[in-house]
């Protein structure tokens, strides 16, 4: 089995899906000859040609709009938006067409589209290259939001996203692109959308996270373990639809929870997760659920980034807080 990083596993998933299904086309800025600014699509234009791996104009609303039109016509487009901050120009297309065409046409048309985009901080990039605004899209009815945290997860989730008959926003944690490697099977496999996974089992506190924050959360869990605190760590994997069952069952067992995300706190997904815990497990709780998040600010440039992003220390502090309530 090959040991791959996240970039390589996503590339492998794209290549295999393009081989399997001639309807799959890729489009985005710099994805062809240049292989994408993160090299995720490296070699794919050479293999599949310019007509199926399209170097699009610098045109984000266009990229998403063209993809919707292609999908309505019967193709399965996978669009790349270079950074999540550049996706804002395409919000109108996502909200006006992609997410609602099935509803608007009462099932006559649907939109099997994947929008891939790197997201999140920690790569010392310029402004608007480190956004984590997944909650905007989780709030939009009709689109799924998927976030892989490791290379193995990424391949299986991306293949599922491409085969899904509805639009999927696939958020790739840019900090993870080349930071970890793991075994990724060459043969195709899928991982279900809408199901979280328990990465580490424990009885003392539930830690919920996704994307790049999962690795920070796991590091915090390992440190806590050294002090005798056994955390259960959940990787949400899909933010919409949210796997309430896995979270609630864990919280019923541990009676305490900490949610970790790098997005701003107010209106962030942590609030929704807490609401669901309250709806289904309030009386099991021994302490209010804690959130370790970014601040309600724009994510700062690199020099202040480490103050903004949730750290192992902040997570440890939150674990102590819910344990000592």
């Amino acid at each position: 089995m090959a040991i791959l990083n996240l970039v390589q596993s996503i590339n492998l998933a794209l290549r295999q899906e393009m081989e399997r299904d001639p309807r799959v086309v890729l489009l985005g800025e710099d994805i062809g000859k240049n292989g994408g600014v993160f090299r995720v699509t490296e070699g794919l234009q050479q293999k599949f040609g310019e007509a199926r791996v399209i170097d699009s104009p610098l045109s984000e609303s266009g990229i998403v709009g063209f993809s919707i039109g292609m999908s309505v016509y019967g193709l399965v487009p996978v669009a790349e938006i270079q950074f999540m901050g550049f996706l804002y120009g395409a919000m109108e297309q996502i909200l006006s067409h992609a997410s609602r065409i099935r509803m608007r046409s009462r099932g006559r048309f649907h939109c099997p589209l994947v929008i891939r985009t790197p997201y999140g901080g920690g790569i010392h990039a310029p402004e608007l290259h480190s956004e984590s605004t997944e909650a905007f899209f989780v709030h939009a009815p009709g689109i799924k939001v998927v976030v892989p945290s490791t290379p193995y997860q990424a391949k299986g989730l991306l293949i599922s996203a491409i085969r899904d008959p509805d639009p999927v926003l696939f958020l790739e944690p840019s900090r993870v692109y080349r930071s970890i490697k793991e075994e990724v099977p060459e043969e195709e496999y899928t991982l279900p959308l809408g199901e979280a996974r328990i990465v580490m089992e424990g009885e003392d506190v539930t830690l919920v996270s996704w994307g790049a924050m999962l690795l920070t959360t796991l590091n915090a869990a390992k440190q806590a373990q050294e002090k005798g605190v056994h955390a259960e760590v959940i990787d949400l994997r899909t933010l919409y639809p949210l796997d309430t069952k896995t979270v609630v069952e864990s919280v019923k067992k541990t009676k305490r929870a900490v949610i970790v995300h790098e997005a701003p706190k107010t209106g962030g997904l942590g609030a929704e997760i807490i609401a669901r815990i309250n709806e289904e497990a309030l009386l099991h709780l021994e302490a209010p659920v804690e959130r370790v998040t970014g601040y309600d600010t724009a994510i700062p440039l690199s020099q202040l980034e480490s103050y903004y992003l949730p750290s192992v220390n902040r997570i440890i502090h939150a674990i102590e807080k819910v344990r000592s309530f």
Partner: protein
Amino acid sequence: MPKKTLKSFAVEWLQVLDEQGNCDEMLRPALSDAQLQKLYEWMILIRTFDEKAFNLQRQGRLGTYAPVHGHEATQVGSAFALQPSDWVFASYRDGAVYGVRGLPLAMIFQYWAGDERGMQIPKGENDFPMTIQVGTQIPLAVGAAYAAKLRKEAIAVAVYFGDGATSKGDFHEGLNFAGVHRLPIVFICENNHYAISVPLKYQTGSDTLAQKAIAYGFTGIQVDGNDALGVYRATLEALEKARKGEGPTLIECFTYRMGDHTTADDASRYRSAEEVQIWQKKDPVERFEKYLESKGIWNKSYEEKVRSKAQEEVAQVVREFESLPPPDPEDMIRYTFDTLPPDLAKQMENLKSS
């Protein structure tokens, strides 16, 4: 070193029937007498439908409605040139386009009465539902044209939008991509001179909207949008060019919105009766009648017959529309995804028990 001209451009104007119904025989499209009468009958039907929609809205039997009045030649003339295998992306004022394409007119009433099933386009009809968000259908149409080209299907895509849409980014992003890939698409701009209350002179500094195509590497043409034969000819040529792989065309149909923006608008607040009068004299139906009369295929009794048939047909459409069962509340959840995720399945249960 002296400056030199690198490129120079021109924008053509096309009119086949003038305001008095005189036909330029050199430009006359090859339509049989029966086809000409069919075109006329559609314009009368749509005008009758439009008047009925207004009345139904005033009686509280229909929600907000965007009238076609003034656009009859633009919409019927262009839609007549389309093949069933072509694709259409259109906007909220394009009832006549959908009608000519074959959408049952009762469904248009149904949609404007607040029932999404009105835009459940019948299978096999390649028409995307009406777009409310101005101009956003343009990139979609361009993407569909790309897909057709990739699949080597010799069809064309027609996308309809208004003068206001030409100010939006999606218009420019769409035309740009279509130009880069020489896609099989026809951009049909229904320039009715108003985006609600904002007149064309505040929408653009360009002398024509057609010339915007030049910047994207293809032809733009301005057509008298109240001349059904001119619009038909321009659209037919552009569609044939598209299907042959010779790239996109922008057709600016120069017309006028005779009615209010919608039934919720009052156009007298922002435009003069004199201006409306000027356009009344350019009426698309009257000049077509004069032309048909000159060909000996129109007289008062034929007109009476066409108008009363249209009245009967629209009355029948109203009966059909008003006898439709109300929508199933579960539909609002059912069509969110192919398979309902657990949250929505639960919300569906809540809806059923509420």
